[in-house]
């Protein structure tokens, strides 16, 4: 180590040797690359499911949108608010205004049975009754086909996700709501958010169909600014006429997706961990084979005066290079195979369907490659030390 320049030139020279020698050990090197690529592809793939669900649930909820529920309820399904409570909420401080009226949409949330396109079996599809302001409160909501429902008429519009996953939601078809058949008059998108999984109708019409009188389940509203949240929340929760809780929509949906996210991330991480172990054993096997195939070469280098440091570095370089190739292949595969796949699952909290797309994020790709490099580092370290420790005389005798 006295002369760093010499040490580095040794490292370069030995590493060049080991990388040029790779094609000779194609079989076992390919095995290691293949194994690592598989691990990374699966890890990124599984985690992309969880990412997709969370993204759908939290997207298009801006920090200034809020939801009001009956205090103690964990989902919209079990919440309930009387018409009088809704009137109180409408006059609360901090709400954004459109012209004279505050941006408030009291809503109903029920489920209807529609068959899944994939299996033909029935699924709980969320049906939401909304007021006009709902279109201003959700971000990026726009019709992609047909038109909005007419207030007061029995008409349904469907999110693009719902239309893709469930049968019978094309514009012009009819679905059973309560004891009647209602026509679908339009398809909307909502910036990839959860509303795309839902069917929307006029709240007043839905109240009649489900004999709900003048009661609602939740209120969605938009605030003047995200900072107005505290004042708004305090005003409602301290009002003796009300028994409600207020959450930012973002937080509310993050809570709703927590169970599914936890389940998939937990399973995904355990699977990735087990597989990572498998890949480490595979890499160790490969690198030990590589080192033993190069015993004579390494001993010769050391007899010529090369230090053991550069030898260690060269073995590590080889294994990291293999891991990097494997990681990049795996991440690319996962991206090609999984990104954007459409699927539907149940939201345990509201007992209704959520449609979403798998989301292979940059973060996941980086995570996959880092994991690959980690496997390569562990897989290369022990064989590298063995290569450097081998007594020169013994090794050369094997010639």
């Amino acid at each position, binding site marked *: 180590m006295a002369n760093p320049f010499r040490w580095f030139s040794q490292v370069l020279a030995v590493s060049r040797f080991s990388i040029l020698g790779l094609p000779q050990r194609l*079989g*076992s090197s390919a*095995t290691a690359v*293949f*194994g690592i690529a*598989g*691990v990374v*592809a*699966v890890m990124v*793939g*599984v985690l992309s*499911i969880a990412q997709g669900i969370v993204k759908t649930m939290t997207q298009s909820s801006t920090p200034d949108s809020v939801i009001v529920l009956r205090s*103690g*309820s*964990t*989902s919209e*399904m*079990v919440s309930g608010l009387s018409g009088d409570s809704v009137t109180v909420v409408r006059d609360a401080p901090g709400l954004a205004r459109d012209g004279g009226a505050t941006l408030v949409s009291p809503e109903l949330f*029920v*489920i*209807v*049975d529609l068959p*899944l396109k*994939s*299996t033909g*079996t*029935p*699924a*709980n599809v969320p049906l939401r009754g909304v007021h006009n302001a709902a279109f201003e409160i959700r971000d990026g909501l726009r019709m992609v086909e047909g038109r909005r429902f007419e207030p007061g008429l029995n008409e349904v519009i469907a999110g693009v996700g719902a239309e893709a996953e469930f049968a019978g939601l094309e514009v012009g078809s009819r679905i*059973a*709501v*309560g*004891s009647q058949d209602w026509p679908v008059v339009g398809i909307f998108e909502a910036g990839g958010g959860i509303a795309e999984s839902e069917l929307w109708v006029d709240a007043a019409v839905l109240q009649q169909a489900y004999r709900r009188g003048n009661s609602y389940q939740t209120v969605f509203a938009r605030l003047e600014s995200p900072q107005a949240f505290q004042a708004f929340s305090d005003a409602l929760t301290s009002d003796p006429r009300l028994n409600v809780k207020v959450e930012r929509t973002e937080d509310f949906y993050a809570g709703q997706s927590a*169970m*599914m996210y*936890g*389940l*998939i991330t*937990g*399973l995904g*991480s*355990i*699977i990735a961990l*087990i*597989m990572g*172990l*498998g890949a480490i*054993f*595979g890499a*160790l*096997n490969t690198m*030990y*084979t590589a080192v033993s195939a190069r015993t004579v070469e390494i001993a010769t280098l050391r007899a010529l005066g090369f230090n053991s440091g550069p030898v260690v570095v060269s073995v590590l370089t080889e294994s990291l290079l293999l891991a990097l190739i494997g990681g990049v292949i795996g991440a690319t595969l996962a991206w090609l195979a999984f990104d954007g796949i459409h*699927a*539907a*699952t*149940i939201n*345990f909290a509201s*007992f209704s*369907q959520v449609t979403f797309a798998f989301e292979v994020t940059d973060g996941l790709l980086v995570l996959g490659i880092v994991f690959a490099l980690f496997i390569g580092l562990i897989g290369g370290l022990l064989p590298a030390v063995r290569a450097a420790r081998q007594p020169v005389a013994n090794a050369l005798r094997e010639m």
Partner: protein
Amino acid sequence: MKFFRLLWSGLMRKKLRTVLTLLSILVAFVLFSYLSAIHTGFSIGVELAGQDRLITRHKVSLIQLLPEAHQGEILRIEGVESVIHMTWFGGTYQKPSNFFAQMPTDPEPFLDMFPEYIIDDEERRSWLETRTGAMVGSKLAERFGWKVGDRVPIDSQLWAQKDGNRVWEFDIVAVYDGAESGTDTTQFFFRYDYFDEARGFGDGLVGWYTVRIEDPGRAAEIARAIDAQFANSPNETKTEPEGAFIQGFANQMGNIGLILTLIVGAVFFTILLVTANTMAYTVRERSSELAVLKAIGFTDSGVLGLVLGESFMLSVIGGGIGLALGWFMVSLGDPSGGALPLFYIPGRNYLIAAALIVALALAAGSLPALEAKRLQIADALRR
């Protein structure tokens, strides 16, 4: 067994490689165990559904309630043996994340309907005597540390009592076990008479009916007859076999289970292939050794047996430890702490695992074993 030491020393020739190969096999079978449990968890208990049971629910959706009076009408339909009803209670214990299934029902016909829930006569009697009594699954009891005699408050999201209070108190009088490892023991059943009298609204309304029929072969016909009975009434029904109902519910979780199974399955086979490849490669390295064995008098089939024996030993040891470890990990439960009520490895999958162990040994061992059998002594020693 007299060749055991020879097999052993063959494996110990390169200890490190043997250990690494063994560990790879082990990992593959841990993965297999976990995969089996995930698959079971996502398909809920479809296979254990009663062949002779139908579920009747509201046609529009499961959240719509049906009148209690349907019970008698269903019972009068020809081919129906018995009918019970249940209702979703939607409660939690202590905090909102402690979520599990609770249903009010009529104890006596319920226990007859579901022979797979096992309680002793003492517990049965005490449930019939105690109005506020509840029968809970053993896994659920273990989760919250409940035992018979405890009084537990359940906070219902859906049902308030007449005074508006949403917290209901129950006395645990029975803890049931499952007749099979797949029986769901995470549920909580309590008495409908207590529930119906105390609830503040919805008197006389129930969630769904479970119907037992005399002849499973007539399931479709009877289901149609039940639905026809209520057609054009305000409470139209939809009846289907219990299996189809559970399958429909499992399908609602979506293809996530299938996707997980497919990718993990692909990885499992990749590991096996890679391992088989490594094992085969090891044997080829040793052709001169095998030739020496032949030279000192081992027969061709003796050498074949030795090579195959080695690969069997590796597969069986690695696979066996892997399955044991996998069983242990699965018994710790699913990582989300309760989202999948059934998380176990079905017995049948152990047969599949055994077949896979044999297949691995054959895949890894047979080609090199044949090569070893055909090996010419002179050729091999010349190398």
